[in-house]
């Protein structure tokens, strides 16, 4: 079992595990993987909006929202393809509504199509049932030389 962080926020579902282990993800995180939904068809990731994630308008910074989308979709590409590594090729994000300080922002990721080399994904970021961001993107399965 991966270890849980000490600053695990209240209200996080049982079984949440930290996935932000590399430098940048750890620096802006923590980011958690939550238990799958819909019999495994839905992959779930989340972070809690803290002071460091904010913009000067009092919302969660768009960069951090896109960071969660990128992390959640990259990890899902890896899980679904079984590849050691997947690289983001394109990511398109619509900012539907603001994230607020203290919100648990959850990314719900679905695989649209998986070919031998490419994974097509979509994701919805939600906070307390409100949609904050929707994203689609392509990931390239990286084959070891």
């Amino acid at each position, binding site marked *: 079992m991966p270890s849980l962080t000490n600053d695990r926020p209240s209200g996080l579902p049982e079984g949440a595990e930290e996935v932000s*282990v*590399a*430098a*940048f*993800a750890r*620096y*802006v995180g923590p980011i958690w993987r939550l238990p799958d939904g819909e019999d495994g068809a839905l992959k779930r990731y989340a972070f809690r909006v803290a*002071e*460091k*994630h*904010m*913009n*000067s*308008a009092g919302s969660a*910074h*768009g*960069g*951090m929202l*896109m*960071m969660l989308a*990128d*992390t959640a979709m*990259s990890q899902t590409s890896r899980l679904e393809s079984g590849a050691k590594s997947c*690289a*983001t*090729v*394109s*990511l*398109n*994000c*619509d*900012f539907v509504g603001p994230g607020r300080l203290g919100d648990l922002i959850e990314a719900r990721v679905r695989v649209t199509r998986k070919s031998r080399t490419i994974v097509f994904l979509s994701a919805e970021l939600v906070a307390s049932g409100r949609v904050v961001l929707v994203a689609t993107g392509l990931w390239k399965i990286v084959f070891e030389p």
Partner: protein
Amino acid sequence: MSAWPRPDFSEIDLVDPFEIHVGPAYQQGVPGSRRFAFRVDGRHVNRRGVLHGGMLLTFADLSLGAAAWDMTDRAPCVTLGMQTQFLKPARLGDIVEVQPHLMRRTRALLFLRGDFMVDDEAIFTATSVWKLLGQD
């Protein structure tokens, strides 16, 4: 490795807590045609020493947002959407630079794009649409 920051760049006085957290970022030129840059340091990379996509996305939001602000005389505006392509990995120590371009401006919307360069080679490209608050 060349010295950074170059003498023609100055540090941006960042305001957003998240940008301060991942910064510093640098600028060159006058409002309306500013160039923006940051240096990839140890905080920005993944375990293979490659710049994390999340940092590029944040820098894209920062730089295109700052350009949008220049072009609206600092009127409040928000990002409606951002479309990005990751062309090539950037690595520890690289200087990532962009000069955002305004593609079109309407009363309510700004359309921007930026090609993000390392050593004069494009590594990432972004377009974004910004909404001027209170304008229809």
